């Protein structure tokens, strides 16, 4: 008889957890205490050790699934047990995982997880509309409710596909997609809002991956930003020749700086101008407020193996160039090695994203919500420029700055970029403004 391991409540009243990673596979021999899987709950992230010695007979969930507390996660048979194939857990013992694909009741064609997908099949479809009566309670976790608020959708209208009709994260996301597509659909399609989004066709040699972990958080944030704010991007070219000279001089004096600290100082100097106070602010559209921040914390977007992280350098206006150089080194290293505490990954009031050598010409950066603007930096290279009717070689870079047009008018955004440009092209002016 196989031992069925049920997800324990590892954090006082937690109802579910995301199975982040399997550390064993079916058929693996395990000892007592062998790490089985990693689970992420609202309170903790933990590695779950095996309570039994034996062989993993069956894993009931996939990475990225939300597993309810009390659900059978895996079965372990005693080594040498003839009954290697455990009976399936009863319905009462195994609540359905929060499905990423709709269940059979809502979609006519739904492949089971075990069915190899040989022929093209539709695996994504519309969620059914809610059928709950007025006094029926909406079942959803606080995190899911928050996501619904963030995406601006009414959770009461969404039919839940989870256990006991629970509205899941996927239900909310599917619904938001549907709403967005319905509103974008051309007029002839408007009459049939229930038409399916483009079917995802999976061929035998395709690979389907789950959108989980950091990637899911990035995806939620990007989507929330685009869903809420009205982006416009303004691009201009900046002459870095003077800054470049300054940088070389500092390097010769022993301060190994990059261009970024100069840009940070120029940005903060411009942000402190009352004309641009709306650019260092947090918007709460639901509350109808914009909070003008009086501290200057710059988010610095960083690429890591797991995905995009935005560590924060606090109080940039109060720090010396030397301190900024040191701190950028620390947060960069911390982001790469995942050693930054959450406190260093939130709280920015304005964000800079720099693509370095991959910079290209320009881009349309997405605002780091709830902020109102983001500055993108591109490649600095020598370009021919006309100065006093002469063609000369100068070091030039494009800057792409995206603004939330709900809050920032076009001429304000443009003037901000011009101000940053002026400060960078005449470092003397920048020096004059430094505290």
């Amino acid at each position, binding site marked *: 008889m196989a031992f069925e*391991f049920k997800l*324990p409540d*590892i954090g006082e009243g937690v109802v579910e957890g995301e199975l982040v990673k399997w550390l064993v596979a079916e058929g693996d021999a395990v000892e007592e*205490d062998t790490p089985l899987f990693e689970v992420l709950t609202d*309170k903790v992230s933990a*590695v*779950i*050790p095996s*309570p039994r010695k034996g062989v993993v007979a069956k894993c009931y969930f996939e990475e990225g699934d939300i597993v309810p507390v009390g659900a059978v996660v895996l079965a372990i048979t005693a080594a040498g047990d003839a009954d290697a194939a455990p009976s399936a857990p009863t319905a009462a013992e195994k609540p359905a995982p929060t499905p990423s694909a709709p269940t059979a009741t809502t979609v006519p064609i739904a492949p089971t997880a075990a069915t190899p997908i040989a022929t093209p099949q539709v695996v994504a479809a519309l969620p059914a509309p809610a059928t709950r009566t007025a006094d029926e309670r909406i079942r959803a976790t606080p995190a899911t409710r928050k996501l619904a608020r963030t995406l601006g959708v009414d959770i009461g209208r969404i039919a839940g596909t989870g256990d006991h009709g629970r509205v899941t994260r996927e239900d909310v996301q599917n619904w938001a997609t549907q709403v967005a597509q319905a509103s974008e659909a051309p007029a002839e399609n408007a009459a049939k809002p229930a038409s399916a989004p483009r079917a995802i066709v999976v061929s035998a040699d395709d690979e389907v991956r789950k959108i989980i972990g950091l990637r899911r958080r990035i995806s939620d944030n990007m989507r929330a930003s685009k869903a809420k704010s009205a982006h416009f991007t303004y691009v201009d070219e900046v002459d870095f020749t003077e800054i470049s000279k300054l940088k070389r001089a500092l390097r010769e004096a022993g301060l190994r700086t990059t261009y970024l600290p100069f840009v940070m100082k120029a940005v903060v100097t411009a942000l402190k101008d009352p004309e641009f106070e709306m650019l260092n602010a947090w918007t709460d559209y639901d509350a109808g407020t914009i909070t003008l921040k009086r501290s200057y914390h710059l988010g610095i977007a960083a690429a890591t193996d797991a995905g995009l992280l935005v560590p924060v350098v606090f109080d940039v206006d109060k720090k010396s160039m030397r301190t900024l150089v040191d701190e950028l080194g620390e947060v960069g290293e911390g982001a790469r090695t995942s050693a930054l505490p959450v406190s260093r990954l939130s709280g920015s009031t304005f964000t800079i994203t720099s693509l370095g050598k991959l910079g290209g010409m320009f881009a349309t950066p997405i605002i780091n919500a709830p902020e109102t603007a983001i500055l993108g930096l591109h490649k600095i290279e020598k370009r021919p420029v006309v100065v006093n009717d002469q063609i000369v070689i100068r070091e030039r870079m494009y800057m792409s700055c995206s603004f939330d047009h709900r809050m920032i008018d076009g001429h304000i955004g443009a003037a901000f970029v011009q101000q940053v440009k002026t400060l960078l092209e005449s470092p003397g002016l920048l020096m004059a403004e430094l505290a």
Partner: protein
Amino acid sequence: MSSAAHTLPTVSTLQSAPTVSTELLQVMAPDGSVVDAAFIATIPEADLIRLYEAMLAQRVYDDRMIKMQRQGRLGFYLACTGEEACSYGPAYALEARDWFYPAYREPGIALWRGMPFQAWVDNMVGNCDDPAKGRQMPVHWTARAQNIVSISSPVGTQIPQCTGSAYAAKLMGHDAVSICFFGEGTSSEGDFHVGLNFAGVWKSPAIFFCRNNGYAISTPFEKTTAAAHIVLRAHGYGIRGVLVDGNDVLAVIKAVRDAADWARAGNGPTLIEAKTYRIAAHSTSDDPSSYRSREEEALWAELCPLKRLRAYLETKGLWDETKEQACVDTSSARIIAALTIAESKPHPALDTVFDDVFAERPAHLDAQLNAMTAHVASGESDYRAG
């Protein structure tokens, strides 16, 4: 006007005020080198070894309990990793007749003072032999025979209780001191004021032991108080205050012994602040990576109380890697055996929930007991009574 008009009348004749020291009391430096040779000489070498073995064993027990919780076999656990000296030290320093009011991170009090090991483990599982009869969370044990009062989840309740029990001992002429334990976060509770003020006024033979481990769950010390130390508050209550290195078990013993001597001599209470660090998470429901840095954790791991005592013992030739491994193995076998027994025991009988509040069960509880018994017998619902 004569200058006498400016002199306020004296309300009482105060003796010289008890001193409050903010100099960190240390007997042994973090590298195990000796700071106070005279004090070390008062502790037999055999006791030093026993203390080290007990603290090392505690680490093994804590590790096992956390794993048990992650496997779904315990509802909850709180490890004392990094703070072992703050429970084994005071337990060693005081006498069998003294009274203990633990917070929840002082297993050393139970185990050093002789609470049966199996009973301690039975409490974690909440079985029929749990001294708290399965009514409290794990880690909320009680040990009547060892003069250890039951642990309460609401923080700070034990402080006035300790003051009261110390005052009672004084009234009854018992030569017993009472000691209570709490974290620096709890010093913000009203009970802290009530307990310390009353004890100061009435010179209760009490010891208030504050484990300042840096965090009240996720709230850092600097958000608990604007003061540099909790011990400074002793000034305000007119009582003795001592700041001690909480990762130096010998310094903790010295601080508690001095406080007990002071109390037994009729001088009243002492507030001890032990500076330490909670290397473990607050509990199995907590994830410290979200509020403190790994660098900070690594720094304190170096200062851990076990490393310090082990370094000293090794210098003296009293300890080595073989003994270390043997102690870990023995402790591991001991805790696993006790847990196996604890898991095999039945839950407390359902009808025990009607016991203990009244000496004689009143009629309305008899009626409830009968109704419950009939309901369970009907088989209407499935109760895991066994």
